[in-house]
Structures are given as structure tokens and as C-alpha cells.
């Protein structure tokens, strides 16, 4: 009897040890499937699933993808990152949907020396002796820079700002402030509201009291429409501008007529079908849409799933080079993978052409953004 039990135990142990024996590459992915970031966290998750379908093996090595939910909570993101590294021994972290949680994850990645590809914009990385983290999205400063250039072209001088009372609101505001001297604009207000607020009447009154030519929205998703609705109620006639964070189908439904005409800077993938044929993102973005459609049976219309997809492309490109020198599951491989990521050259994705180098968090340039305008409930390419 005891013999049998022991045999059984050995068998079970063998089953559990089996995956570790064949060295496949393990990816730890964290997103927000619940909590206040869920509306963008869910597309991020769908994007990674589509990316996995797009490319399941690298040089014959299979990829194992582990997904966890952080509930939009930075402390849960920290726990998830630790669990993935210490228990699952992942070679790479990808995450997560909200900026505060991403910064928390990045701290863990730097401490435990695991490369991480961030899919949220992070302004500044935690201090660490070596760089382990890169970020896919266009930095807020660049997003706002492109919008500010457009404001200048449209002849806007005085700008009112209203955004979320969180890290994202700060990023957009600071980006607009930084663009003041070059684009000859003046940001007059810095009003904030929370995603769960029921009214922004007071803030909009304050914005309008500054008599702005245009208003810049530093919100995201559905609730980014609230200031626009209030502005139109109060009879604001000027232009409105925003960033890619607003782009999702529900923003358009909720915003309705009030959101009409808003111009946002966004990755080319948003208007893939309208891009000229020679544009770097055209073909790959259409491929991405096809694989997303195949994986989920719904079309993709947001920019968030595309960030996950680009993170996967960056990882796949770096892993090909890292596999030449080390075996997955080892510290050497993690270091090699990080070095490979940090030496990415002219890699076209659906959002941008990526060039990473040590010392810089992001690796995108102005090619990564186009201005799109909401016309009749559809985002239209506005070069």
C-alpha cells in the first residue's frame, strides 16, 4: 500500500515537474479584469490572447502565457508580479492596465531582475541600478505634443484643461505645460475630477471662466465623455482635444453629439483601414485585426488591445535574439532578453516603429501618432 502511495506521489511530482523540464518561455501577464481599470483592462487581455494566437512559438520553443487580474489595485499588481516571478519563474512580465499598478509592477521587476514590458504609459521608472523595464505606449508628453502641434495649426491660443485626479491626469497636464513654449499655447486651468464623479459642472464653470479657445481632456474611456457633455450643456463652442485614452466604442456612445468633432492623437492602428498603403502600420495592423477577429469573434476598435499586441511583437523579436545565447528559465536568459529588448531596432508594430536603448523608457517617435477626428460617431484620419 505504502509502495503504491509513494509511486503515485512520484508520478504526481513528475507531472508537475514536467513543464520545467522542457524549457519553454514563460510569460507573466497582468491586467485589470475588474476594478476601475476594467474597461481598458479587458481589451488589454483580449489583445494578448490575440497576440498569442498570432505567434505561439519562437525558434521552435513553445511559449507559456500566465494571465492574472490585478483588480486595478497597485498592491494586487505587486503581489501578482511577485507570485509570477517567484512561483512561476517567468522570463518576462507584461502589464498592466492602469499607470499606478504598472509603476508598482515595475518596482518588483527591477528588484527581482526580470525584464518587463509595460503596456501603460509610465512617466518615470522606479530608481534601480539597471534598467529592466520598457514601455510600449506613446509617452503622454508625445501624445500631448502632437495634440498641441495640432492646436497651433488650428490657431488655438488659450487652452482649458480638465482631467482625472490621478497619475494619468497629471501626465497629460504636464505634457501640455511642457508644450507651451514651442507651440505658443497657454494652459489656463488645471481642473480635476474622479472617474466615479457624478457631475463636473463646477469644474467646467471654472474652465469656461478662463475663456479658453479650446479644451483639452485628460480623462480616459467612457468617463472621459463627462466634461464634453457638460461643456456642450453650457454652450461651449470652441474646439475640444484629447488623447488616445478616450478611444473606445463606449466613449462614442456615451458622448454622443457632445463628443462630435473632438480631435485626439492616437496610434495609427485606430484608423488602420484609412491609412495610405505605404504607411508602416497598415499591413501589420490589418493582420492584427484579422487575428483578433478570429480569436474573439468581435472586431477590435480600441488602441489598448493593440498595445498588448505590440508588447508581444517586441518580446518575440527580442526572444529570437536572446535564445541564441541562453536557455529559457535561467537568470542568463532573463539578462539576455533584457539586453535584446533594449537593443530593438526599427521594429514596426501596429502603433509605432520601436527603437529601444538603455536609459529611455519608451522607444517611439512621432511616426507613432496620427490625429483622428470623431465625425458622425466614427474616428476619421485627419492628417
Amino acid at each position, binding site marked *: 500500500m505504502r509502495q503504491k502511495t509513494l509511486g503515485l506521489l512520484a508520478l504526481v511530482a513528475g507531472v508537475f515537474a514536467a513543464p520545467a523540464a522542457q524549457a519553454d518561455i514563460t510569460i507573466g501577464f497582468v491586467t485589470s479584469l475588474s476594478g476601475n481599470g476594467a*474597461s481598458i483592462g479587458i481589451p488589454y487581455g483580449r489583445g494578448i490572447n490575440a497576440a498569442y494566437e498570432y505567434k505561439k512559438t519562437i525558434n521552435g520553443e513553445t511559449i507559456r502565457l500566465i494571465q492574472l487580474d490585478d483588480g486595478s489595485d497597485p498592491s494586487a499588481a505587486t503581489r501578482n508580479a511577485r507570485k509570477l516571478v517567484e512561483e512561476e519563474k517567468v522570463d518576462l512580465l507584461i502589464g498592466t492596465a492602469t499607470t499606478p499598478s504598472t509603476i508598482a509592477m515595475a518596482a518588483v521587476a527591477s528588484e527581482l531582475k526580470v525584464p518587463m514590458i509595460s503596456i501603460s504609459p509610465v512617466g518615470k521608472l522606479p530608481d534601480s541600478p539597471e534598467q529592466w523595464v520598457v514601455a510600449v505606449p506613446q509617452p503622454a508628453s508625445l501624445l500631448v505634443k502632437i495634440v498641441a502641434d495640432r492646436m497651433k495649426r488650428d490657431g488655438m491660443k488659450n487652452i482649458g484643461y480638465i482631467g482625472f485626479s490621478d497619475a494619468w491626469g497629471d501626465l497629460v497636464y504636464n505634457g501640455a505645460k511642457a508644450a507651451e513654449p514651442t507651440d505658443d499655447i497657454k494652459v489656463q486651468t488645471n481642473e480635476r*475630477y*474622479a472617474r466615479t464623479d*457624478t*457631475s463636473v*459642472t*463646477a469644474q467646467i*464653470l471654472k474652465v469656461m471662466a478662463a475663456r479658453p479657445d479650446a479644451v483639452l481632456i485628460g480623462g480616459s474611456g467612457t468617463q472621459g465623455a463627462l466634461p464634453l457633455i457638460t461643456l456642450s450643456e453650457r454652450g461651449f463652442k470652441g474646439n475640444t482635444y484629447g488623447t488616445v485614452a478616450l478611444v473606445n466604442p463606449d466613449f462614442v456612445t*456615451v458622448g454622443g453629439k457632445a463628443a462630435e468633432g473632438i480631435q485626439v492623437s492616437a496610434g495609427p492602428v485606430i484608423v488602420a483601414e484609412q491609412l495610405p498603403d505605404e504607411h508602416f502600420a497598415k499591413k501589420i495592423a490589418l493582420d492584427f485585426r484579422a487575428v483578433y477577429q478570429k480569436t474573439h469573434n468581435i472586431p477590435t476598435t480600441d488602441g489598448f488591445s493593440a498595445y498588448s499586441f505590440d508588447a508581444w511583437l517586441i518580446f518575440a523579436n527580442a526572444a529570437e535574439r536572446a535564445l541564441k545565447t541562453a536557455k529559457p528559465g535561467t537568470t542568463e536568459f532573463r539578462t539576455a532578453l533584457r539586453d535584446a529588448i533594449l537593443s530593438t531596432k526599427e521594429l514596426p508594430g501596429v502603433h509605432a516603429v520601436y527603437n529601444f536603448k538603455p536609459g529611455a523608457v519608451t522607444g517611439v517617435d512621432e511616426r507613432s501618432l496620427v490625429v483622428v477626428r470623431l465625425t458622425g460617431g466614427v474616428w476619421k484620419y485627419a492628417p
Partner: protein
Amino acid sequence: MTSDIAAILGIDGIATGAVYALVAIGTVLIFTVTRVIFIPFGDIAAFTALTLAALDAKRFPGTGALVVVLACLATLIEIISLIRNGDTRLLPRALLFYLVLPLAVVGIAWLTMRIDPPLAVRLVLALMLITPIAPLLDRIVFRPIADGTVLLLLTVSVALHFALVGLGLLFFGPEGVRTEPLTSLSTEFAGVLISGQTMLIVIAALVFSGLLYLFFDFTLVGKSLRATAVNRTGSRLMGIRPARAGTIAYLLGSLMAGVSGILIAPVNTVFYDSGFLIGLKAFVGAIVGGMTSYPGAAIGAVGVGILESFASFQSSALKDVIVFSLLIPVLIWRSLASLHSEEEIEE
């Protein structure tokens, strides 16, 4: 700040405050009858808005599934407790109330959906679907611990809120909704534009707080409900059924949460988790009213709304800090000014 702006802020604050007032009155109602500080109240209001939006979009709302699941659970618990107590003759009645009625409501809603009903019918459907939730939750969660301390009931209530938020995400998805306004009327008052929707909210809050005041002070059922809150054992000796009193309170309360949900849906975007903050601010209002007085809770909640509106104008980033900081002086004033009732004595 000019007088124009102050007027607009005041109106905006009263409109927000009236929503809080509806929820605050409901919170006080349930608290005075069952001693439960019903945190998920705001969630029920938010779920009504989401249900209505789903009906508008011709989707069958997740609330239906929620009601079915809760009804099955409650029936199971009720049957087990009846069999344990040897009250098998009450089984048919229990089945009728806990299983047949809620399922009938869902069935009616499901059938009515097919014929693409007008807005008025959709409003009624949304209210019908939402009303069974709180009484069923009461049967499943609160009745087994009805004699517990206020603190225990509060803790369970918080846990229940988190469970409901999770279910809300499952049933309604992560996106916010906004429904069509019920009325497009608007009037000028002292040079400030007031929308009909705002007036509806304020009128509803006034009507409900008035009605409840009359109900509790001038009807026998109302008085029996109050007696239950003061002393469960004593009221049972007088022939009042505490369990039934609780159910009535939850039904009334859900109806109010439902109405406030329907009223806020057109004026702001409601998410599956919007309820918590609405509930919390209403709770602050209710505390200002001392958790016992309906007019007090309504006035307190309107005060919170106005404070919030002016605070957002002065410093939008610190708005919630200002609102919740209000609690501290209020609680100090309350604890110094009121005589402590000894309600926590072991019976």
C-alpha cells in the same frame, strides 16, 4: 466667484444632493427597521440604471439572472430552516414568496422584452427586476444573524457590497452607461437654467421623504416597523413579526434605490461600481441627520451635495477629501449633543 456661478453651483449641488437624499432616506429606513447599515444600497441604485440601459439597448439585463440565482438560494435556505423547525405546513407559502414570485417577475420581464415596450413600461420593468434583490439578500444574508450587533451587521453588509460589485462587473460589464433623459423640459429660474431632470430628482426626494415620514408616524404598519428596530424581542411579544417587518423595509428601500437609479441614469454615466461612492456620500448625509430622522437625512444629504459642488469649484482635486472630512466635526457634535441610547444591551 460671481453670483451667477454660485447659483449654478447651488443648483448643481441640490441636484446631486437630492440623489444622495433618496439613497440616504432608504439607508435610514432600512437601518431603523433592521439595524443594518445597508452599504450595497448605492449598488442597487447603480444596478437599476444599468438594467434600464440594457433594456433600452434591447439586451436582457443581467439583473434577471441575479434574481433567479438569489431566489433559488433563498428558497433553499427557507426550506431547510422550515423543515428544521418542523413548520412544513408553511412550505407552499415560502415557495410562493421566495421562488414563484421572483421567477414570475423575471419571466414577465423576459416576455415583455420581446414586444419592444415603450419607455414607461421599460422603467416599470427595471424597477420590477430590481425590487426582489434586497429582500432576497436579506433572507440569505441578514436574517440568520438578525439578532447580531450593529457592528456585525455592518461588517457583513460591507462584504455583501464587494460581492455585489463583483457580480455587477460579471453581469453588466466594465463600461459606464447613460440613458435618454426622461424629460427635455427646462426652465429659467433667477437667470439660471434648470433642467426638468433636476426638478424631477428634487421632487422625487421631497415626495419620498414626506411619504415615509407620514408612513412611520401615522400608520400602524409603520409604527410596528419602528417597534421592531427599538426592540425585536419586545415587538415579537406584541405580535409583530420582525422578519416580515425587515422584508417590508427592504422592499420599500429597493424601490427608492431603484427610483434614484432611474433618475441619475440620464444625468451622469453610471458604472457597475458607481454605487459605492453614492452610497457613501448618502451615508454621510444620513449621519448628519443622526441615522434616525428622514427629513434630517434628506437635509444632510442635500448639504453634502452642495458642499461637494462648491468644493469641486474651489479645489477639484481635494473635493472628496473635503466632503468626507465633514464627518469628523459632525460626529463630534453628535456625540456631544445626543444622549446615548443603550441599544446594545444583551437581551
